């Protein structure tokens, strides 16, 4: 049986890759994808712990995370459409109106 | 262990072969059936050395369907349009076919069969959450079509892909709700268990099939399934008169063959689901493990193997029946308009399904099942 720490480390790696994606990519959609990636990495950690302590709580949290992720994706993409309609771009570098 | 793997492999192969053959036969059904309904002759030209004629057999076009078309399609040039995303373009057809095929893994096509003291469940994968699995695979099924439409770098195909995706997403909901209703009724996600629960009779003569418990769910599953399979009257994604052929305009040769195969596989899938959920799957009325127990009391004992084989045959017959039903519909109905499609999906089936699930849940709770 695979030690839970393996799963945790895997989730750490995925999470970090997601972080890097958010930081490196300019495309808002890809940034959103990276965020989803991070969420899933966390989910993985949750399930691993849930298995370790054989309790359902971790899975419940995963369930909630999925729900929230769905809501977040819906709203986020809607915002993106609105932004694109106004600014004709989804490049994070060009969407810097809210600044000094 | 090895034996287990072997048995699993055998079951998988059996299922695959079954599906492919049924699909192929379905193609023939379609041709001849449509010809019949439209008072045509249909496929009748292909002939090998005139053997059939010599023997004076009527030309049923089987050769056309089963050999000639296949050969033609698989020997044609595989054309990739300029500016297409080659990787995705090549990947799409198999993304479309794969989910449909793997869905059949959880379908029980028969009861247990006992060979050399080893009882074998007659389904490829003994998964106890089959319903979820089905929903998952159907969900994945969207991508083949969508990516096919996108990767071809062609307006028509992109339009078709978009339509197909929207349509499938919309009707997945209805489908899922129908399945949920059934699951709530029988209290399990295990398809085999569902089939078993449909064995036996009410009032001594009425088979306990799901259709009698969940007629609404049956209608919804049928409709949504046909929409999923993107056939007339739900064939807007590929409506020849508007989008030439929709998402697979730019496909030719073997890849197009794969798409066609997917089409028929989906038809079969719908029939299989309907059969499994509402028509007892492999159940035959009055047939139990040890043989027939007719309402009027006479008992015909049968060996286990015979019962199992009977079950499989019954299953196949039911499936073919529903395939035929779909073909009839396909050649009878006109095509929907897009807004009609969406209205039906979102304003018709979705609320209906929700209401159905709610009612079912209440009834189940009250009945204390």
């Amino acid at each position, binding site marked *: 049986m695979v030690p839970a720490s393996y799963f945790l480390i895997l989730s750490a790696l995925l999470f970090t890759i997601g972080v890097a994606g958010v930081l490196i990519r300019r495309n808002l959609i890809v940034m959103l994808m990276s965020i989803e990636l991070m969420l899933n990495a966390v989910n993985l950690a949750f399930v691993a712990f849930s298995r*370790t302590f054989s309790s359902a709580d971790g899975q*419940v949290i995963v369930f909630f995370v999925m729900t929230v992720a769905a809501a977040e994706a819906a709203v986020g993409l809607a915002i993106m459409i609105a932004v694109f*309609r106004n600014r004709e771009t989804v490049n994070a570098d060009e969407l810097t109106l809210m600044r000094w | 262990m090895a034996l287990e793997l072997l048995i699993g492999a055998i079951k998988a192969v059996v299922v695959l072969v079954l599906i492919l053959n049924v699909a192929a036969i379905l193609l023939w059904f379609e041709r001849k059936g449509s010809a019949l309904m439209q008072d045509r002759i249909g496929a009748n030209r292909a002939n090998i050395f005139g053997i059939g004629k010599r023997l004076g057999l009527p030309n049923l076009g089987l050769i056309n369907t089963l050999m000639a078309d296949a050969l033609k399609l698989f020997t044609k040039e595989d054309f990739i349009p300029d500016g297409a995303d080659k990787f*995705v373009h090549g990947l799409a057809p198999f993304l479309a076919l794969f989910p449909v095929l793997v869905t059949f893994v959880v379908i029980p096509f028969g009861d247990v069969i006992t060979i050399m003291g080893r009882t074998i469940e007659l389904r490829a994968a003994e998964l106890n959450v089959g319903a979820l699995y089905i929903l998952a695979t159907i969900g994945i099924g969207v991508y083949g079509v969508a990516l096919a439409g996108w990767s071809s770098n062609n307006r028509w195909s*992109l339009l078709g892909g978009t339509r197909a995706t929207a349509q499938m997403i919309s009707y997945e909901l209805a489908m899922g709700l129908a399945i949920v209703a059934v699951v709530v009724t029988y209290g399990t996600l295990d398809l085999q268990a569902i089939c078993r629960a449909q064995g036996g009779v009410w009032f001594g003569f009425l088979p306990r099939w799901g259709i009698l418990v969940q007629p609404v769910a049956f209608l919804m599953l049928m409709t949504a399934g046909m929409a999923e399979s993107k056939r007339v009257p739900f064939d807007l994604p590929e409506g020849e008169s508007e989008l030439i052929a929709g998402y697979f305009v730019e496909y030719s040769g073997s890849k197009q063959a794969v798409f066609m195969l997917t089409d028929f596989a989906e038809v079969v899938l719908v029939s299989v689901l309907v059969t499994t959920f509402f028509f007892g799957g492999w159940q035959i009325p009055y047939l139990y493990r040890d043989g027939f127990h007719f309402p009027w009391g006479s008992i015909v004992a049968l060996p286990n193997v015979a019962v199992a084989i009977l079950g499989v045959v019954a299953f196949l017959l039911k499936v073919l029946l529903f395939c035929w039903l779909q073909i009839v519909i396909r050649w009878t109905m006109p095509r929907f308009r897009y807004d009609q499609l969406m209205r039906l999906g979102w304003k018709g089936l979705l609320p209906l399904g929700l209401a159905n699930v709610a009612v079912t849940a209440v009834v189940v709770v009250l009945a204390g099942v």
Partner: protein
Amino acid sequence: MPLWFFVFLAALSIISALGVVLQRNPVHCLLALIVTLMTIGVLFIGLGAVTVGFLQIIVYVGAIMVLFLFVIWLLNLQAMPANSGHLALKLLGAIGAAALVAELFAFFTQVPATAPPPANPPADYGSVSQLAIALFSNYLIAFEVTSILLLAAVVGAVALARRAPADTEPRIAQTETRAAKSEGW
């Protein structure tokens, strides 16, 4: 789940995750992400959380990702030059990510969960009933709140993405964008 299978899935997920970050074409990123999600779903199933695993595939792959695909199409995003300056940020981001992963390693190699989990979890572990019981007993309020959240999200998404009166807004937007571009924002 045998170790070799885990390693295979882990490698697959990591590679595809890297694909998400590194590929130019949003659609390819999306495909990579889909692969990652499915791998994670399979990992769930392998961990015994069967229901959650399938839910993962249904919800993420079957719904959310399709939404992404739609938006990509709607905005007609083709491959865009990935590196528009900000090399410093990229470098720092890489360093920060490395630091983070190092720290997380430091954690997860120390956690008591290093020992392999109990080989035989409770019979109903990961089943729908277990999840449902937890959801509707301990987490009932959270569950209801989540449903409200979803409703709000639906309404909000519709309100945001609805096309505004087509006469004024786009022109303003374009001038604004042009001004912005000319001022080098």
